[in-house]
């Protein structure tokens, strides 16, 4: 008994040592994410923080894998996994981190002296970013409510950024305009330059004691940053000292290549006084009015085209854009480039529904290569595809539709080819995903979602309280719920989940399931799939599932002709059900040799029965004929007796 409770307890621990208490929240520790108290059972119940992972937003799997040892001034992940939620509300997924050393710096924003800013904020965080950079990782969650300080005079600690997609909870101000204009889920891992940018805004916030551009809505923030440049827009009404201004100017540079690497920020001496000589872009004296936006340069033109796609197509077709580029902006090269794009679009003999959005996307990329992929009014970075799908499935159907179009129309590849975007992660291998979309049937997008978000659970409503993220979990779920299951366990949604999370062989079987033409072939394919899934992922006994399978095998057993054999099979099936191995049940029901013998035996029996029926009918039919035959035979015998007697008498006389 004690062993059982110990086992049950160890099953609820994450990584075998962290116990999560979801009844106790830890305020601020998650930097915007729900955080709960956790205890380390192997360190005298030391306090830890468990960050809750949302079912709709994938945690950063690569970071959780790579960050396996402590890093100074960073809340590194210590473990991650499933834990029960208090009150019997099912289970959740948590990322365990060390507790923050103190409150977040956002709790009481004050003006930090420049020296403290450099020593206690810039250097520690630059050190953290340098380590991350060396491991080809980004943080993407540098903001005041995710930076903690134990006490005044102590270096700050950077919070966790592992339990949600990159930059998902970043305020617009802390992101470069090209990231800020994307939906939170569409920002992608980005590059170290994005972290340097966010760090620059953090330094500005702490240097002035208030959030820059406070009170402005997100489109205005982005427009100002594009129009004025980030540094000018952010420091518009904030006083910044000269040396700090130089530092911030480089950290907030428009070109990510001009922003310093973290190593350069640890020791500022070599870079102090360094000034960038970025060439200012062309600017027109005469604005192009596109909707309500007055466009003065190519950068804001790209933004304006993105904001109003209808007007964008109209202005591109009637040549207003190229005319303005050539005459007002004086950029004939760019104008020719756009003209070529428009001409190519107009030359299409059979324009599809993707033609106009593709033209707008390519035009925006040509006008400003730093812009993200802009498709039908949605801006996104392709490396964010997993979280885009997750967000799309959870709540934003327009994101889902955009992702589907992007994959089907092969937009991602053509956009990637448009311009080199240094620093960004490689776009995902879209060829495979496109093949999957085009050949994967109705569940292809779901399959892609599950494949790209390996830690997110199955989204079936009946699994809402459980975190089913692997085929092993799914098999356990089947075992628990098979009693109340209907005629089928695997529907389109679960099939997509299995195809994405299982191995290649199982994936092919799921394909066969989808192509089943009738209910009978679907039933057979489903049972075979369950058998192989149990063999591969859950070799232990599954009596609940076996009982369900046995009920589904009833039609197979009913087809047996030989009754004693059928009854013996039923008894054997019942015994095997308790053993809980689906494969053995199927073997029993699908023995081809015995089945063939049964069919042959049935045919023989049918033939023999027909012969018996024919003979019985002949007996009934030939009764009168038999009497006539008996009469003739009797008369012949009587004649024979008479003849014999006559011959005997004659012989007795002759031989006397």
């Amino acid at each position, binding site marked *: 008994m004690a062993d059982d409770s110990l086992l049950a307890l160890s099953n609820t621990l994450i990584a075998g040592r962290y116990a999560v208490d979801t009844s106790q929240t830890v305020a601020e520790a998650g930097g915007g994410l729900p955080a709960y108290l956790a205890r380390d059972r192997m360190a005298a119940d030391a306090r830890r923080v468990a960050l809750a992972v949302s079912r709709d937003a994938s945690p950063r799997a690569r970071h959780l894998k790579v960050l396996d040892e402590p890093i100074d001034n960073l809340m590194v992940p210590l473990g991650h996994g499933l834990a029960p939620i208090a009150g019997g509300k099912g289970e959740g997924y948590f990322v365990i981190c060390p507790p923050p050393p103190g409150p977040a710096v956002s709790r009481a924003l004050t003006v930090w002296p420049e020296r403290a800013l450099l020593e206690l904020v810039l250097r520690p965080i630059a050190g953290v970013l340098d380590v991350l950079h060396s491991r080809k990782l980004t943080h993407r969650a540098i903001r005041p409510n995710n930076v903690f300080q134990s006490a005044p005079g102590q270096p700050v600690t950077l919070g966790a950024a592992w339990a949600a997609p990159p930059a998902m909870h970043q305020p617009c101000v802390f992101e470069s305009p090209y990231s800020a204009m994307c939906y939170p889920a569409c920002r992608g891992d980005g590059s170290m330059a994005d972290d340097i940018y966010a760090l620059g805004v953090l330094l500005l916030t702490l240097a002035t004691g208030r959030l820059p551009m406070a009170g402005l809505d997100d489109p205005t923030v982005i427009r100002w940053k594009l129009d004025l440049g980030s540094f000018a827009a952010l420091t518009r009404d904030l006083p910044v000292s000269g040396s700090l201004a130089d530092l911030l100017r480089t950290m907030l540079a428009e070109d990510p290549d001009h922003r310093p690497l973290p190593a350069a920020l640890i020791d500022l001496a070599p870079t102090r006084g360094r000034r960038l000589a970025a060439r200012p872009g062309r600017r027109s004296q005469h604005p192009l009015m596109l909707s309500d936006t007055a466009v003065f340069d190519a950068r804001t033109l790209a933004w304006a085209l993105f904001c109003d796609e209808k007007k964008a197509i109209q202005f591109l077709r009637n040549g207003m854009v190229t005319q303005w580029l050539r005459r007002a902006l004086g950029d004939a090269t760019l104008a020719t480039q756009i003209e070529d794009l428009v001409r190519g679009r107009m030359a299409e003999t059979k324009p599809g529904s993707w033609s106009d959005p593709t033209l707008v996307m390519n035009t925006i990329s040509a006008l400003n290569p730093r812009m993200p992929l802009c498709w039908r009014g949605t801006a996104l970075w392709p490396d964010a595809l997993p979280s885009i799908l997750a967000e799309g499935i959870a709540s934003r159907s327009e994101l889902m539709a955009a992702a589907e179009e992007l994959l089907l129309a092969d937009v991602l590849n053509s956009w990637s080819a448009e311009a080199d975007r240094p620093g960004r992660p490689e776009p995902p291998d879209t060829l495979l995903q496109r093949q999957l979309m085009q050949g994967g049937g109705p569940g292809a997008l779901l399959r892609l979602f599950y494949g790209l978000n390996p830690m997110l659970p199955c989204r079936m409503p009946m699994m809402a309280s459980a975190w089913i993220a692997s085929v092993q979990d799914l098999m356990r779920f089947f075992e628990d719920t098979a009693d109340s299951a209907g005629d089928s366990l695997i529907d389109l949604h679960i099939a997509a989940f299995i195809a994405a999370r299982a191995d290649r062989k199982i994936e092919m079987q799921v394909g066969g399931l989808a192509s089943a033409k009738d209910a009978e072939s679907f039933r057979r394919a489903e049972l075979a799939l369950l058998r192989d899934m149990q063999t591969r992922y859950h070799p232990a006994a599954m009596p609940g599932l076996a009982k369900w399978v046995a009920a589904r095998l009833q039609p197979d057993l009913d087809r047996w002709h030989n009754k004693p054999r059928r009854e013996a099979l039923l008894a054997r099936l019942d015994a095997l059900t308790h053993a809980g191995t689906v494969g053995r049940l199927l073997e029993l029901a699908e023995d081809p040799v015995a089945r063939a013998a049964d069919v042959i035996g049935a045919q023989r*029996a049918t033939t023999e029965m027909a012969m018996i029926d024919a003979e019985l009918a002949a007996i009934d039919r030939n009764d009168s004929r038999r009497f006539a035959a008996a009469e003739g035979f009797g008369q012949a015998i009587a004649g024979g007796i*008479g003849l014999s007697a006559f011959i005997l008498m004659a012989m007795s006389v002759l031989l006397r």
Partner: protein
Amino acid sequence: MKGGSKFGRLMSAMVVLLLALAGGALIALSPDIALPLTILLLPGLLALIMDRTPGCAVARAIVLFQGAACVHPVIDAWYRCAGIDGCMGYLAEWPTVLRVWLAAAAAWITVQVLPVALKVLDDYRIRHRRSVLMARRAALAEEWGLEDDPLR
């Protein structure tokens, strides 16, 4: 079957012909024996006229039975009596007539009873065969479930 009845009719005609020839020869050779012999064979001769069975099977049996019963009295009369009166007195006396006619009656009874007995025996055989077949049929139906859906 058709040939068989044809053969029967032929045989019947042959019997009648042979009897007629024998009767003619007897009348020519020994008319004093022919008359009492006619009386002895009277049931058989009447049966030959009245019998409607194929091949005159009943009459044939009666004549053969009577013939067998007449052999000894006719041979005795051949050697021991002379003249119609003598032969009538010798052959047509009641014990002889009764014995020959009883032979005719026995023949008739045999012809009537023997088919019925054979039919009873055959019925018994058929009933046994039928019960064997029914038992086998029931066993097949039970084992293979053929009553419900013979060709599933």
